[in-house]
């Protein structure tokens, strides 16, 4: 899962406006959500030894990556890796996460997005990543291969990112389904 995250980060930072991207990570305990996020953050920052730990208790971990635009101007981009596992349905629980600002100006990686049912989440740059265990005999170990179900809105930059991924055959063995919302 780390490599998948790394590839997506790499391609996202190439786009004109990576800010505002919201990646919703779904999967059961141990599926690989944090591994994906780890690869993503390491890919975005280029630091392959960076510690990217689970934000379950800290709620959100922030990282800083550099992007370079077409005029070679560098700027900082913040990546917020959040885990909503511990939060309840009360909308006030989300206040400390400053979601309005983060959604708009940063790249968000959100584990347990099911908790967002009472929160408005901009959809135009959303990518849903559902990580599943894929086994023929109902086993489910660390080594069980994973499959991805991805979905994103029609017309968003994720479309062209996934086109590039298809074109280079990078995720053929893992993609179960890609759909446009």
């Amino acid at each position, binding site marked *: 899962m780390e490599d*998948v995250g790394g590839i997506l980060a790499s391609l996202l930072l190439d786009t004109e406006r990576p800010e505002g991207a919201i990646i919703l990570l779904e999967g059961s305990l141990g599926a690989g959500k944090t591994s994906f996020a780890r690869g993503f953050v390491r890919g975005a920052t280029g630091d392959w030894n960076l510690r990217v730990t689970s934000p379950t208790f800290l709620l959100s*971990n922030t990282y800083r990556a550099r992007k370079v635009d077409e005029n070679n101007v560098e700027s900082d981009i913040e990546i917020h890796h959040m885990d909503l596992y511990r939060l309840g349905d009360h909308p006030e629980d989300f206040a400390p996460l400053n979601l309005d600002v983060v959604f708009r100006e940063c790249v968000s990686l959100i584990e347990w997005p099911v908790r967002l049912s009472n929160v408005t989440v901009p959809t135009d740059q959303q990518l849903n990543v559902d990580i599943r265990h894929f086994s023929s005999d109902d086993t489910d170990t660390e080594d069980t291969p994973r499959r991805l179900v991805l979905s994103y809105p029609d017309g968003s930059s994720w479309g062209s990112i996934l086109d590039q991924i298809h074109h280079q055959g990078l995720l053929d063995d893992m993609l179960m389904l890609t759909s446009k919302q």
Partner: protein
Amino acid sequence: MSIVKRKAKVDYPCSLLLTILILNSMIGRYVTHPLTLRRIACMRRKVSFRLASTQLSVQQEESPKEKRRKRFIEQKGLPKAVDRGQFATTYRPFDGHSFQALSGLPPNLQNFTVLGIESSCDDTGAAVVRSDGTILGEALASQSHIHAPWGGVVPGLAKEAHEAEIDRIVQEALEAAGMTSAADVDAIGVTVGPGLEICLRVGATKARALAIEYQKPFVGVHHLEAHILMARLPYDSASKQLEFPFLALLVSGGHCQLLKCTGIGDMAVLGGTFDDSLGEAYDKTARLLGLPVGGGGGPVVERLAREGDPTTIPLSVPLQSRKDLDFSYSGLKSNVRRVAERLAKEQGVETPADLSHSIKANIAASFQHVAIQHVEQRLRRAMILLEEKENIRSLALVGGVAANQVLRTRIEGLCRKRSWDLWIPPPRLCTDQGTMSAWAAVERMRVQSTDDPTIPDVYARYPFAQKL
């Protein structure tokens, strides 16, 4: 049930790269051509990437697609990535070798009081502490007597994002100390990082405003240092105080680290978790078993484990083959889930939450036993290292999980065996609260270090500076 052994093996192409890298770094001293230097930097990142990717991974042949993905990252991602310091600001309260009292010091450094505020994450707390370690008054938002139907899993959280709450909590703490306003304390301290930015700001803004209004010395406290320094809080005038240097094991829901503590502002992380913390592993086990997590998952698993047999369920201890000081709990977490789900199936129930009390107790006990074994292994290695290299024989056990009796007992045993002194704050002082900020501020002022309250920064990430 198969137990998978985990190896981090440096494979042949990687060791070849390493050789090239070493040669390159030797040549690098004499090569200044930008293109060659860029190639050397790329090579370094490539090796770094390969090594990082083989961490914790099971020894398996990579599929062609997996190789293609890695190649893509190396070719595309790495050259473009600029190797900037991740951290704009490190915690460094001293300049060179000296501390500075940027906002002055209390008039009497032998006897002064501090108002401490802590709002880095879940909860908001304030406390008034005297420099001899006496806690004069405390208040905590999640335990506030004002009844409010907050609901949610973290009741303190919702409250503390409201600025009105901080005023109330500070007032409560001051009044509990027999004071009417911040004018009555000698100094003010507040956590400025690490933590959630928006939460840190609430506390820091209030503390800075008070420091400026009442012209008090001000300290911007480091949250992790504050946890560690609770082990130095004198509990009575007779007891010996923990002295620097010492080893600290910080274990909580959000942190899982071993640190070498040489002085105020001078702490080095020796090892930490790659993924989940110990407290988190407990919490997730609690939820898996459908236990009520209101008071925290850890205590409820600990209670249940007392009724179970830790030898009934085989679980592998994480990172057994790694000879370092790092931790990993995500594998154990997944392992427990798999075992629980298998047992549920065998018992003909729908989910692990439906398992019988005695089976759940066995799962809790077995999990706890292995989780603590992992701590013991890493801790023992750290202890040996520090005994030999630095003659350190004092350990501070801090953070929320320090309240776990089984952990305390096992670590007490380890310390006895190796003739180490062990310092553990009382359980109620191991969690986030105002007292930790107040005491950390006391310690900073004792070494004549204070900060400038007019600088409004808070630091979501706030690593310790490397000593030069």
